[in-house]
């Protein structure tokens, strides 16, 4: 039954990774402009990048 410890541990670590990524994206402001994000995906970046 020791395998259950491994499984619980693995699932928790993976879950925490997901949570950390979500909190990072929230802090990064990725949910601030949902309308803009929906439109931006259609832009082609033909203007020179600097």
């Amino acid at each position: 039954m020791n395998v259950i410890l491994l499984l619980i541990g693995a699932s928790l670590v993976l879950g925490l990774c997901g949570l950390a990524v979500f909190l990072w994206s929230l802090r990064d402001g990725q949910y601030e402009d949902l309308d803009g994000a929906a439109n931006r995906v259609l832009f082609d970046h033909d203007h020179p990048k600097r």
Partner: protein
Amino acid sequence: MTTLALDEGLVRATVSSCAHCGQPAAAGRRFCCPGCEAAFAAIQALGLGSFYERCIAERPPRPERFEPCDLTRFIAARGDGAKELVLAIDGLRCGACVWLIESVLGREPSVQTGRVNMTSRRLKLVWRGPDAEAARLVSRIESLGYRLVPFDPVALAASRDDTDRALIRALAVAGFAAINVMLMSIGIWAGDAAGLLDGMGPATRDLLHLVSALIALPAIAYAGQPFFRSALAVLRHGRTNMDVPISLGVLLVSGLSLVQTLSHGHDAYFDSAVTLLFFLLIGRVLDHRARGHVRATVELLLTLRATDVTVLGDDGTATRRPARSLLPGEQVLVGMGERIGVDGVVERGASSVDTSLVTGESLPVAVTAGAAVFAGTMNLGAPLTVRVTAAEDGTVLAECARLIEASEARRSRFVVLADRVARRYAPAVHLTALATFVGWYVWGGVSLSQALLTASAVLIITCPCALALAVPAVQVIATARLFRSGILLKSGTALERLAEVDTVVFDKTGTLTEPSLALVRDGVDPVALRDAASLAVHSRHPLARALVAASGNLPAAGQVEEHPGLGVSGGGMRLGSAAFVDAVSSGSCSGPELWLSRSGEAPVRFSFAERSRHDAAETVARLRAMGLRIRLLSGDHAASVARIAAAIGIDDWQADCSPIEKVTLLRRMGGRVLMVGDGLNDGPCLAEAHVSVSPATAADISQTLADAVFQGAGLRAVSDLVVTARRARGLMRGNIALSLIYNLLMVPLAVAGLVTPWLAAAAMSSSSLLVIGNSFRARA
């Protein structure tokens, strides 16, 4: 559009559409005005011509010449030596506009970041170089047709909403915990189902309980905070709300489950506690979002209208400054067609002033030196020099401010439906749980921990999860629905108050009537109107605007000269006051007028009058059909009130009301009044009424006071609001009934000690989902 082309066939035949803004242009011409031509050329020169193919919605607005405003105060220096400016954008239509603005800025070598936030309609500009660079960049975007207004960095920081992020973080943590604890719980329940599987040893169950506790307890400590704080706050005031039983239930249940876990007990309820928080936080986040969004929109609308005023220095120099930075004694120059941004006394000049936003009078008032003028009124005639005075006692403004203050305090006493239910519900829940505990422990002969566990099962079952979602879920969905049709609901309790209304009181000017004057069409020669409109396009004067609106966007004349305070001339034609065109005013008809003179023809007169909103009569009839009493209180003269009242079908009206008379009449009416008004003089009524609504063209203070603001030309929003509110109240009551029925069914089982952890979790989730599902009916 309500503007009518005079002779549509004729117009269509000779007019093509402008290559930039898409509005009609003269035959054979590609552009409607020089501004559009310049914008088109600028876009092509940058190689961004594909903009026009990208537009999926309307084209950008026609570029106008905006008064440059002093940006220096709004610029914030950043640590790395760059400078930052945040601006509100007006005229954003779709993604193509975002692309255009960002591409144009991207080609400026000095610009580091130029990013548009489409949701909040803001542009963040970061650049290196002098402050003056900002003005150049802003005018570059403005020349494309978008209007930019800077945000004050201090106000911006103050308005930043951290609650939203905090709630979402709490939601994420609760969601994570709910999923993982449920993972453990399903293992435990499966192990319990003897015969189905091999069964689970006590050691394994203890392990799973322990892991659950390790996940759930920190998550509850973190994600439960919004509820714990709110519960503590009301308890300190000796009251109770829905958050009290929630907090108590969650804390008791997790505490007992921890005891069970440590004493190798059989049942733990960690899953119920975290799922409960997860569901409740969904409601909280949605509720907060909907309201924050509306608040931001109203803020933006007001920012866009705030304009600078021209201040005259002692040495005669003129500078542009924001109105609120002025001190009493300073002198302000107000041009023709400009809004008077300050309260003051006319020093020099004679003109007529449109005071409809302040006093409700529809006809302009003549002012000369010594007359008092108010912020929010508009100068229709010659330029005025105004000396700023503080709002003194005895003025309309001071009186309104006092009345508003008095009414606002009374308003805050309204208790929302959810709290009314909670006040009765919370004590009942606590008593039932206590009785269960005492019953089992004293007479049932079970152990202390078993009795506590049964009591906590009662608390979980009765924990008003569905009840706490019942009202916000409907509110969020109804608010979003109203938002889509241009109605901004500012107050969280507005829907409930709207549903109770039995009388609707309208203001006349700007509410039942359109906010600006309209051309009187009788006997107007179409050719003369076309000629006049081609000159009027070049003027920002309200009457000129009305003329253009009436002629349906005709092409502009080529060379036009503006004579401040008098009129415009060009192509051998003159448009302006009677004196300007050498006409003899008949004097028989009062009211605002414009004259057009063309070489070799007699001068033509255009007169203007207020016009009721196109659906005012229909809206009033609809409200009456809902069983509401309709009244009209106006500060305008009896003759014009009577005319509009008759046209719309309101027989109960009162004219010549001062703000104080309006409030007195409102109080005397009794009942629950919905006040619809736009003027400063309606302010006290808006604050005093049970619930209040303003059009988006209303005075700033009225919009701030109103519970809801509606956009658009129609009045239909008012009846829509009442219909939606009544429907929403029905759904809220339905939701509350649903969750109470569920409680009635489940509580006896819990008291009898028959509720196992999985039954509690399943019952709680299903009732919450049922309530959320029922709330979606508010969309219809």
